[in-house]
C-alpha cells in the first residue's frame, strides 16, 4: 500500500450529510469481483446527468474543472453510511482521491479507508467550511491540516495512523501474533468447545 505522509491539494467540497455508499458507488456499477474498474462509476447518480450515456452533470463538484486534479474531498456528517461495500473506497482511490475530510464517517467506511491507504480526517463543520475549496497541506505524522496559513489539528487512532504512514498491510501485522492467536484458541477450545465446528465433524 502507498504510504501516506503529506499531501497538498484543493479540497473539493461536497457539503452534504449522510452520503451513502450506494451513492458513492451504486450496486449496478459493481460489475466484477475485482477491486478495479470502479472510478467511472464513482458518484454516478450525481456525477452524470444521464448515467447510461455518461453525460456529465455540470453542477456536480467533481465535474468542475477547478477540481479536476483534487485529491481531497470534503463532506458533511456520517459520510459513507449504508452498505459495507469496500468498492466505495476502491472507487474513490482509483479516481484519485487520497484523503476525505468530513464531519464524521460511518464506522465500516472509516475502517475500509484505513485498510486501503485513504486517509479519513474528521473536522468540525466550522473548519470544514473554511478549508473547503482551498488548497490545503495535510501532514499525517504531525496530524495537521494547513490552509491559508492556518493550521488545524486532527485526531486519528494511533494504529490507523501507523498503518497509513507506513503503508502497512493489516494481515501481515496480525500474522505476527499467530502464536498468541493459537494460544487463545487452544484455551478457548476447552471453555467453548461448541464454537469449533471442525473438531466434531
Amino acid at each position, binding site marked *: 500500500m502507498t504510504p501516506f505522509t503529506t499531501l497538498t491539494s484543493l479540497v473539493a467540497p461536497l457539503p452534504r450529510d449522510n452520503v451513502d455508499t450506494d451513492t458513492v458507488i451504486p450496486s449496478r456499477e459493481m460489475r466484477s469481483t475485482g477491486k478495479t474498474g470502479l472510478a467511472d462509476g464513482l458518484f454516478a447518480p450525481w456525477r452524470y446527468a444521464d448515467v447510461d450515456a455518461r453525460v456529465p452533470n455540470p453542477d456536480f463538484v467533481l465535474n468542475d474543472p477547478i477540481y479536476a486534479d483534487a485529491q481531497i474531498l470534503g463532506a458533511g456528517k456520517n459520510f459513507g453510511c449504508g452498505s459495507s461495500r469496500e468498492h466505495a473506497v476502491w472507487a474513490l482511490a482509483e479516481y484519485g482521491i487520497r484523503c476525505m475530510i468530513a464531519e464524521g464517517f460511518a464506522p465500516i467506511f472509516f475502517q475500509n479507508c484505513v*485498510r486501503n491507504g485513504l486517509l479519513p480526517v474528521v473536522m468540525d463543520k466550522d473548519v470544514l467550511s473554511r478549508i473547503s475549496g482551498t488548497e490545503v497541506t495535510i501532514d499525517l505524522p504531525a496530524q495537521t491540516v494547513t490552509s491559508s496559513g492556518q493550521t488545524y489539528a486532527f485526531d486519528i487512532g494511533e494504529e490507523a495512523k501507523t498503518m497509513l504512514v507506513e503503508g502497512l498491510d493489516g494481515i501481515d501485522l496480525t500474522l505476527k501474533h499467530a502464536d498468541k492467536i493459537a494460544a487463545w484458541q487452544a484455551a478457548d477450545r476447552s471453555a467453548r468447545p461448541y464454537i469449533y465446528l471442525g473438531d466434531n465433524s
Partner: protein
Amino acid sequence: MPHTLFDKIWDLHHIADTAGGTALIAIDRIFLHERTGASALNAMAEAGRKVLDQAQVFAVMDHIVDTRPGRSDGTLMKGGEGFITETRAACHAAGITLFDVNDADQGITHVISPELGIVLPGCTLIAPDSHTCTQGAFGALAWGIGSSEAEHAMVTGALRVQKPKTMRVTFKGALPNGVTAKDMILALLAQEGAGGGASHVVEFAGEAVRNLDMEARMTLCNMATEFAAFTGIIGVDQTTTDYLRGRRYAPDSLPDWSDLMSDAGAVFDREISIDASTLRPMVTWGTSPGHAAPLGDPIPDDADAKVLTYIGLKAGQSVEGLPIDVAFIGSCTNSRLSDLRRAAALVQGHHVADTVKVALVVPGSSAVKRAAEAEGLDQIFTDAGFEWRESGCSLCFYAGGESFPPGSRVISSTNRNFEGRQGPGIKTHIASPEVVAASALAGRIVAPKGDKG
C-alpha cells in the same frame, strides 16, 4: 465491577492490545455472500493465503440471485452470473461451507445464520455486509466489515478492532397494538438522526424489547447500522435459548448463557430512554432512514431541499395518503415467517389496489418460503394480487437487473430509503410489513385499519 454485555464478549475475545485502544479480537464465525465475499476470497487466493479454520466460515448466494421461480445461476443483473460462479469456485477452493443458489438452506445471510444456529450467544461473528448487526439479537457481537477485513479474519482468526463506545437504548413500557420492532427502530432514528449511534455498540433493553420474539429482535438490531452504530446487541434470555434449541449448528446441549446480559449497575457511555407505549406506526419521508415520522405527522419545516426535490414532497406535507406504485415485503429486516404471517393476516380476503403496479413478497430464506407455503400464506398473497418469489435480497437494492417502473413511489419493508437505492429515481418509503400490506390494499400509504395512524 458490573460489566456491560459488550464488555463481557470483548474481554472473552481479547487476545492482545495492539496500539492506541486497538485490540486483537478473536473471531468465531465468518459469513460471506456473493456480492462482496468473492472479492475477499479472490484477494486471499491471489496473496497465496489460506483460511485458518474452514469449519468456521460460511457463504451464501443471496444478493443478486434471481428470485423468480425456476431460477438457476443466471441473474437479471447483467454480468451477475460471474459473481455466482466465481463465488462458488472460490468457496470450493477455500474449503468453506456454501449454501448455494438452489440449496434447501439458501436465504439471506442474516436470516439463515440464525435459522441454522450459526450465530450463538457470546460469539463474535463478522460478515462483509453492513446488516450483520441483525445477529446481535442473539447476544452475539456481530458486525459488518469490508472485504479486506473479511480476508483478514479468515486468514488470521482475528481482527484488529478499535474499541467502540457503549450506548443503551431502553424502551420502557409496552408497545401499543399494531406497533412493531420496525417502528421502534425508526422512532429511534427519527429522534436521534442517522448518525446518532456513531461508532457505539448499541444495546437494546427494556420491557418492550424483552417482550419481542427473536424475529422482531432481529428487525430491531438490523437497522443499528442505519444508526451509524458499530453494531446492535440484546441480552440473552429464555426467548433466545428457546429459539436456538435444536438448530443444526447449535450445540446439542445448550451451555449456560445466563451471564450474557449487562450486569445491574453497568455503566454505558450514553443512555437513551424511549417510552414504547407512546410509539405509533412509522414511515420515512426522505432519503435517510433518519427521515422518519409517525404516520400522519407532517414533514419537518427544516427538511433538506435536495431531499424533498428527490422524494417529490414538501415540508409540512404528510406521507399518509400518498398514492403508491409499488409495495415490497422482503429483506433481512422484515422477511421472516412472523413478518409474512402478520402481513398475510391483513391481506387475506382482500386485493391489492388496481393502481398498484407491482406488489411483491420475497421470503427471507428458502426455509421461510417452505414454512409459509405449508401454512398457505403464499396462496393468501397470490390471491390478493402479490407476486410470491424465491428467497433473496431482491429489490431491497437495485443491482442493474430487475427494477420497479421508472419514477415509482414504493412502500417497502426494507431498511434503506437512499436516493436510487431501489433504482434510479425510485422514491422509497420504509415501514413495517403491516403498513406495506395495508398500503398495497389501499393504493396509498396508510396504517392497518384499527391502528391510529
